[in-house]
């Protein structure tokens, strides 16, 4: 078996793991692929290996060290395939680190490169990424347009990527007060993500369903999804999602007239995440911030 075959095999298995949302496994496979590429001295494979590995590392929130390598590839490499990957990954890193304007800049490069390649799946992911940056900055209508385009381009089969786009658009619809449509999209997303076993991505849609049910006063269902989101977020050590889950569960408890439970959730939010904000539990008991908070920001 030669190096190129092994690289392709490892890459293919890594991509399959990514589609299923199994990022730790994917990172291990991409690490092996990159090692093979370096041993063979094939620069195109090395660049591809760096991009693939960076994608999963960034997704797991450990991407700080990856951006300089990706930027260097973006400047040096003229291959639109590699450039799209590099730009997309940089954009995704800036999205996760909440630098949305930089994220938008690189997402547009990724979209343009995807257009050159004519890759529908990459057009979908690029539109989704642009939508994410717009949603994070509360440009809801504009974000919806991007997510709709993303859904047009996304393969119809139930992948984690399609599930994520459905989740994003569903959340926007809830924010727009289009609850019925929002529920349809969110539950379709949940079904797909569960089928894929993509628990990391299931957290977001659970949180969005918790919020949607909260907005329509279905408190029992809201609680159920909030609890599920919290459990998953804790298992995945997803701190941002734990924060949102504690806030939403506190809101649900408060609206259910269970003030002790609400104080418990808000108290934990204060202790674990905002230790300097001693006023936080009483503030959240006194003030309804649902119209102010963006779970996707």
């Amino acid at each position, binding site marked *: 078996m030669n190096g190129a075959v092994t690289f392709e095999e490892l890459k293919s298995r890594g991509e399959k793991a990514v589609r299923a949302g199994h990022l730790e496994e994917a990172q291990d496979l991409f690490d092996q692929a990159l090692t093979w590429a370096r041993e063979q001295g094939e620069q195109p494979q090395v660049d591809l290996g760096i991009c693939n590995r960076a994608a999963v590392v960034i997704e797991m929130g450990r991407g700080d060290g990856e951006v300089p390598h990706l930027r260097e590839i973006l400047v040096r490499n003229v291959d639109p395939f590699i450039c799209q990957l590099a730009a997309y990954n940089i954009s995704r890193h800036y999205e996760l680190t909440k630098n949305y304007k930089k994220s938008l800049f690189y997402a547009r490069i990724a979209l343009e490169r995807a257009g050159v390649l004519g890759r529908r799946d990459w057009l979908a992911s690029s539109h989704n990424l642009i939508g994410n940056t717009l949603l994070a900055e509360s440009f809801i209508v504009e974000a919806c347009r991007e997510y709709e385009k993303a859904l047009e381009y996304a393969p119809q089969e139930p992948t984690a990527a399609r599930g994520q786009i459905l989740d994003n658009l569903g959340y926007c619809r809830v924010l727009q007060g289009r609850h019925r449509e929002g529920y349809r999209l969110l539950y379709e997303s949940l079904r797909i993500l569960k089928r894929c076993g993509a628990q990391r991505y299931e957290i977001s849609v659970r949180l969005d369903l918790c919020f949607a049910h909260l907005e329509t006063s279905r408190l029992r269902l809201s609680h159920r999804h909030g609890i599920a989101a919290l459990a998953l977020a804790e298992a995945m050590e997803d701190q941002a999602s734990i924060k949102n889950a504690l806030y939403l569960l506190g809101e649900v408890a408060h609206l259910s007239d269970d003030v002790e439970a609400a104080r418990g959730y808000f108290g934990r939010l204060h202790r674990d995440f905002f230790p300097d904000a*001693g006023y936080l539990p009483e*503030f959240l008991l006194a*003030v309804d911030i649902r*119209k102010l*908070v*963006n779970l996707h920001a």
Partner: protein
Amino acid sequence: MAAEKIRQVQLVGRKIRELRKEHKLTQVELSSRLGIQQSDLSRMEKGEYRVSLDTLFRILAEFKVSIGEFFEGVAKESITPRDVQLVQSFNALSEDVQREVEEFIAFKRSKEGRHEAGPDTTRAWEADE
């Protein structure tokens, strides 16, 4: 008994604007302190911009405001470090002891003739009894 709902919505942007002006800060100055764009702060003040929990609590911390300052009628006094310490100490107590403390406070207030004149930062606790 459930806490009385005195919750207010959609005032946050307006209050941020008021507080910014009270503190004689321009949008550029405040947005710089908060690490956000001036255009985003402008939209936030107009109620067009939703924020993460992190950003919301960063704003509150910036103004060092009490619930009452932020939402008039809820409380009248700023929360001082001593207040925060008291609340934290209170929260560290068991539920039974918390109730004893609340009863003691109610007793002392009745002795001082300070019957409830309006809502304050302990309103939720009292309403929960």
